[in-house]
C-alpha cells in the first residue's frame, strides 16, 4: 500500500497492521527517514516538502509493484509526507514483510533507494539565512543504479 499525506504517521501501528493475522511473515524490515537539524554543516530550522500530486502516487505504486515482482514479499507499505516539517519529524516510512529476512531487507532498501530518485518530491530547508532547495545527491543516484545492475 502507498500513502501520500501531510499528517504524521505512527510507525508501530503501521508495521503491526502489516503483520496482523498474516502468520506467513517471518521478518519485517522497515525504514523511517527523519528531518535532521544539520545539513551541510548548517543548522536547519524547518523543512518544506513539495510534491507533484498524481505523479507521486503513480511512481510510488510503480516502485512498490517492482519490489513485489523482484522479491517474495507478503506485504509492503510506503508512506511519504509532504508540507511543512521540523527537525525530528518523520518524513517517510517504508516497510517490507517476507517469510525470510533477506528478502525483507533487500526489498526495503530497494524501495527507499528507488523512491529517492523516482518519486517527485523536493525539499526546501529553512535556516537562519533563509531557505534553500536541497540539491540532489550523486550517492542517491548510485544507490538506485545498484539495483538496476542487479537486474541483469
Amino acid at each position, binding site marked *: 500500500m502507498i500513502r501520500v499525506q501531510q499528517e504524521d504517521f505512527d510507525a508501530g501501528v503501521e508495521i503491526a497492521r502489516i503483520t496482523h493475522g498474516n502468520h506467513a511473515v517471518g521478518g519485517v524490515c522497515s525504514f523511517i527517514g527523519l528531518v535532521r537539524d544539520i545539513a551541510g554543516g548548517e543548522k536547519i530550522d524547518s523543512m518544506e*516538502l513539495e510534491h507533484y500530486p498524481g505523479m507521486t502516487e503513480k511512481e510510488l505504486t510503480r516502485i512498490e509493484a517492482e519490489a513485489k515482482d523482484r522479491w517474495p514479499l507478503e506485504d509492503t507499505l510506503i508512506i511519504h509526507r509532504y508540507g511543512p516539517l521540523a527537525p525530528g519529524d518523520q518524513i517517510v516510512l517504508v516497510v517490507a514483510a517476507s517469510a525470510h529476512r533477506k528478502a525483507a531487507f533487500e526489498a526495503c532498501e530497494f524501495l527507499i533507494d528507488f523512491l529517492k530518485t523516482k518519486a*517527485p518530491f523536493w525539499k526546501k530547508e529553512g535556516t537562519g539565512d533563509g531557505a534553500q532547495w536541497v540539491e540532489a545527491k550523486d550517492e542517491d543516484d548510485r544507490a538506485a543504479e545498484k539495483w538496476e545492475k542487479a537486474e541483469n
Partner: protein
Amino acid sequence: MKLMYFAWVREKIGFAEETVPKPDEVTDVESLVDWLKDRGDNYFAAFNLPGVVRVAVNHEHAHLDHPLVDTDEVAIFPPITGG
C-alpha cells in the same frame, strides 16, 4: 499543453502552472524547453543551465526526445530530493 513547474523552477518562473497551445516548433521535450527559455527573463532564469531540469510527461519521467502533443501534461522540475 498543460505545463507544471515545481520547486525552484516554479519559484523562478513565478507561478505553478499554465496552459499554452502547443507551438508547431515544439515537437518534443527538448524543443519545449528551448521554446520556453525565450519567453522571458523568468523562464530564462529557470532553463538557462542546460541539462539541469527534469521532465515528466503525463506523470511519467521522460527524456529530452520524448514527443509531445497538445493534450499532454508536462511537468518541469529540478532533480528529485525526497525520501
